[in-house]
């Protein structure tokens, strides 16, 4: 069964980029759900327990990335789904704040499709670790 992913970002261009990335290489054939703000993103997250990974932009109107993470934690929604925060900045304090809020990892911009493949591979590995 192909993997399902959720991308939450207020930039239409980024959604096009994600589509490009999820259509090639090891990710080809993936199902991708799109949300343009945190509120939409939360709704879709709740509706799809089968998601392999969520890519969450930090700065969005109407509930930003951190707010979404906070709400998910307080409602304990699908804690098994890894959420990756996508951001341009990266001070250690920011990262710590994100992880504290519940982000599993960070994806720093600018990224290329290969970076998404890597993050997905790590997430899948974590969910079902291979034989050691």
């Amino acid at each position: 069964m192909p993997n399902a992913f959720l991308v939450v970002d207020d930039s239409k261009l980024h959604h096009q980029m994600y589509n490009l990335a999820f259509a090639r290489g090891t990710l080809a054939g993936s199902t991708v759900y799109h949300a343009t703000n945190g509120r939409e993103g939360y709704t879709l997250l709740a509706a799809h327990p089968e998601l392999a990974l969520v890519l969450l932009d930090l700065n969005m109107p109407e509930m930003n990335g951190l707010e979404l993470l906070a709400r998910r934690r307080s409602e304990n929604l699908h804690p098994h789904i890894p959420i990756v925060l996508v951001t341009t900045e990266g001070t250690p304090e920011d990262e710590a704040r994100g992880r504290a809020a519940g982000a599993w990892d960070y994806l720093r911009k600018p990224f290329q499709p290969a970076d998404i493949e890597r993050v997905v591979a790590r997430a899948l590995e974590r969910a079902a670790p291979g034989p050691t």
Partner: protein
Amino acid sequence: MAADENAFSELIQDYIVECLPLAEQVGDAFVELERRWQEGDPGDNTLAALAGPLHTVKGNSAMMGIAPAQTVAHALEDICALLTAEPRLRGDEGAALLVSGSGMLIDLVRRAAGGAQPEAAAEFAEQARAFITSAQTGAAASESAGESTERRAGDRRITSRREEAASGPGSVVRVDFRRLDALLEVLGEGMIEQSAVIELYRRLARKVGPSDEVADLDRALLALQKTIKRMEGILMETRLLPASSVFNRFPRLVRELAHAAKKPVRLVTSGGATPLDKAILDRLGEPLIHLLTNAVVHGIESPEERARAGKPAEATLDLRATSESGRVVIRLSDDGRGLDDASILAKAEALGLEVRASDPEQLRALIFLPGFSTVKEVSSLAGRGVGLDVVATSIRELGGTIEVSSRPGQGVSFTLSLPLTLAILRSLIVEVDRERYAVPLSHVTATVRTEPDTMHQINQKGVALWRGDLIHVADAGELLGTGAPPNGSRRFYVVIGTGARRRGILVDRLIGHQDIVVKSLDTTVGRPDVVSGTTILGDGRVACILDVVRILDQRVPA
């Protein structure tokens, strides 16, 4: 990472579609804020709301590998952050930086498809850094010392930076292009009036004879001419836009055409920074779109054909712009099937045209004639079947030329040559049968006095021996319909054209060189073949401008 190695580079048009409105929104807001700050209104909500769009443009630019835009957006973001936190810094200097930076950002985003120069962006980032640092140290100094001398030193630093910012490469103003057109028109009138004054001066000088006053007047007029010439130069520069402003829409267009035609085709553009007069640029889009459509729909073979021919499945269209000695050359090539010479020959014969099958260049030039379409199917994409004759006419109306070259099975290449400016032309004024005409100097190779021993008749066609070559010579009166004169009145001929297409035109007198203001011919007068426009000479009379390209195109009368 360079933009062209970027996996997302095919989304460049989408990038522009998303980021250009954001950049413009930010730019407009900064202009508004500048006004408000001058009135003492801090404009809080506006400033805070701009953080989002700037952040998006910065992130998108980074994703697309467009470093200059990313740099400028980042710098603007930083300045905004500083000014949001420190309302007392919201003033002229900060506003000037924001306005100039956003103008640069808009430009960078708009020209993203054509490639941008990173230096200007880096310089702006420097200015931003300097402003922020000085603001922070200035704040620290005034807080700690509270000394008026410290403050004055800070002010002086800020003032000189303001001057730098004002004169820096990022300073941009927005001007309605109609103002530039109006300016050009007024300049044109000024040049006409200048010619009139010079003409009057000449008459006066002849009447009065040499004298100190005449010499002074001569010098003054020369200085005036130089100044007006400089004005013309600067004005022409303001009207220049990069070729990418018209190239930008094409990658998406080609993608759509290719998709509809079910052929994989990609468009590669280069030379997007090449400058062109906006007036020309505005009218270049349509002919280029026709050429691109033709290439995709008719020039490129189906994927199966290409496979059989051993060509890569994805066809390539190459569009490039370059500056070449005062002209802009735009080349559009494809790696398709090339022109079918046999079809062209057949069509020519069907139309009753006389052709030499042995001259492929002349043969292929026929495709620009009206009614000449060798396309077998009419496709709905190519639509109303706009022919290449319309393209050729559009290019000619811009004062340009279009040529085609082709290699069967390998592709077709169109070369457009356009003048840098539309409106002012260096020309040679000649007299034929007491009427004066202007010949664009860029097409004039030489002027020659007719000597009996160099003029001959071969098969009753006039030829001349010029620099060792035999060139065909036509009578201007015949060309222009005033008729060939009795022997002897044509004392000069003007050599026009280059290479194989070179001719002499017999005229009565050579009047001189003149910068003329081109006034397009009213459609009321019609569309003469030999005249491309009109101008007003120093004596107030209207003179026709000879359409040298069309004259050269004309077949030598049998």
